[in-house]
């Protein structure tokens, strides 16, 4: 190849040519997964090195963008960067300009664990702190992004279940540095909760990735929720997502809709309850009359039992029984069976031969009359037949 045919540049021309090549040949926006190394603030801009262990490239978040970020990366954080390439022709230096930086799942989960452990140690996370939810709240606050499908779902569910509860919707931001804003809103609302008649708070956010819910692991936000003057119900993300906010809340619902279901009663079930009460009310009059009638009957019976006539009747009955008993015990029964009663002239019953002597006059009473007899002879038995 001849030297004449090689392109010849000045340094500036070379750098400009590289710049224009990159501009034409490289995607204007891209996602970069990396670990942050040595982040430093210089004149409001955040400079950092993005690395995957083997390779690295420098990156920058301009001050104007930095203010909008919901998350500030720290040394060692795994991140996903939405970036574009910046090429400075003067020094031929290449930098990734970050338009957005989000923590990677591992960073989010690490932060979740850190805050969870801290708040558990302090007793801020404690299932025993959970308060009971109001059974039929007259007003509840719903903190969520507006408009959003989560809010639409919650409003629809609330209308179906329990339209009697007033819903006070307070929009919360989901873009930018949202934790301080949400905390401010929560604190301002807490001050006015009595005045607004609020009985519970719903903190909700529709689906998305776990990384999107990272703000609900914010330590300060969770402390505010834990000390909230009214019961807090969270409905954050999907069923499997768990945030620290869920752990400090009085009730964790799996989704925004489930939060409304947990808090508002079911109108149909309540209607059934009213039907039962209606029937109890209807029966109250009839039932009472029946019971009073029975009471009257009981009293009449008791009165009857205490009357003089009844007393005489009972005494007569008693006498009759005694008469029967007497009859049953009378010796007449024995006389009828052929036995006789022997008495002496003075009427004493003769029980043995000791009280009899020859010549004594005896009366022998039989069933149909009495014989008068005289003792001619006394003959003693040789043995006693009963012994």
């Amino acid at each position: 190849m001849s030297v004449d045919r090689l392109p010849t540049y000045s340094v500036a021309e070379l750098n400009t040519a590289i710049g224009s090549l990159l501009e034409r040949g490289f995607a204007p926006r891209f996602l970069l997964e990396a670990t942050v190394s040595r982040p430093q603030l210089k004149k409001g801009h955040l400079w950092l090195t993005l690395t995957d262990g083997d390779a690295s490239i420098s990156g920058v978040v301009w001050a104007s963008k930095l203010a909008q970020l919901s998350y500030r990366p720290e040394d060692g954080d795994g991140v996903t960067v939405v970036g574009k390439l910046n090429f400075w022709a003067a020094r031929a230096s290449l930098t990734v300009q970050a338009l957005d930086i989000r923590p990677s799942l591992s960073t989010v989960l690490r932060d979740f664990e850190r805050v969870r452990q801290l708040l558990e140690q302090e007793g801020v996370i404690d299932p025993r702190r959970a308060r009971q939810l109001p059974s039929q709240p007259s007003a509840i606050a719903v903190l969520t992004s507006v408009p959003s499908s989560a809010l639409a779902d919650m409003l629809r569910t609330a209308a179906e279940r329990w339209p009697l509860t007033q819903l006070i919707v307070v929009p919360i931001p989901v873009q930018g540095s949202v934790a301080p804003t949400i905390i401010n809103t929560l604190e301002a609302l807490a001050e006015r909760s009595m005045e607004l008649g609020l009985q519970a708070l719903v903190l909700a956010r529709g689906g998305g990735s776990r990384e999107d819910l990272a703000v609900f692991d914010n330590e300060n936000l969770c402390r505010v929720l834990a000390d909230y003057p009214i019961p807090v119900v969270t409905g954050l993300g999907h069923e499997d997502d768990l945030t620290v906010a869920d752990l400090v809340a009085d009730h964790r619902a799996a989704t925004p809709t489930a939060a409304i279901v947990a808090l508002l009663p079911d109108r149909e079930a309540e209607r059934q309850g009213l039907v039962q009460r209606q029937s109890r009310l209807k029966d109250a009059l009839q039932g009472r009359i029946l019971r009073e009638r029975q009471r009257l009957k009981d009293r009449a019976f008791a009165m009857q039992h205490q009357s003089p006539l009844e007393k005489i009747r009972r005494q007569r009955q008693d006498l009759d029984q005694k008469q029967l008993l007497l009859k049953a015990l009378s010796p007449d029964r024995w006389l009828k069976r052929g036995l006789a009663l022997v008495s002496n002239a003075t009427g004493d019953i003769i029980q043995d031969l000791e009280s009899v002597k020859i010549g004594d006059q005896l009366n022998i009473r039989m069933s149909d009359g009495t014989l008068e007899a005289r003792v001619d002879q006394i003959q003693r038995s040789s043995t006693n037949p009963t012994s």
Partner: protein
Amino acid sequence: MSKRKSSNEHRDRIEGWRKDAAGLNYEEALQALDLLLAELQNDSVPLAELQQRVLHGEVYLNRCQTLLDSVEQSIVELDPKTLEATNNA
């Protein structure tokens, strides 16, 4: 004449109950109804007042049913900065 007077008194009394019940929310009306039902069922109400109490209970019951049949939910959206009501909702 006295019969008519008595009937008017009866109507006025029920009207008074209705007005009172109209100021109750669902939970309050339900509590009042349950209290009355408990009294009726433990026979602590004098017989002469029985009919009146049942009518009073029906007023509470009607209040609950009316509230339950309402379909309009009150939704207020507050400005997150000022917490003043906006007209978006």
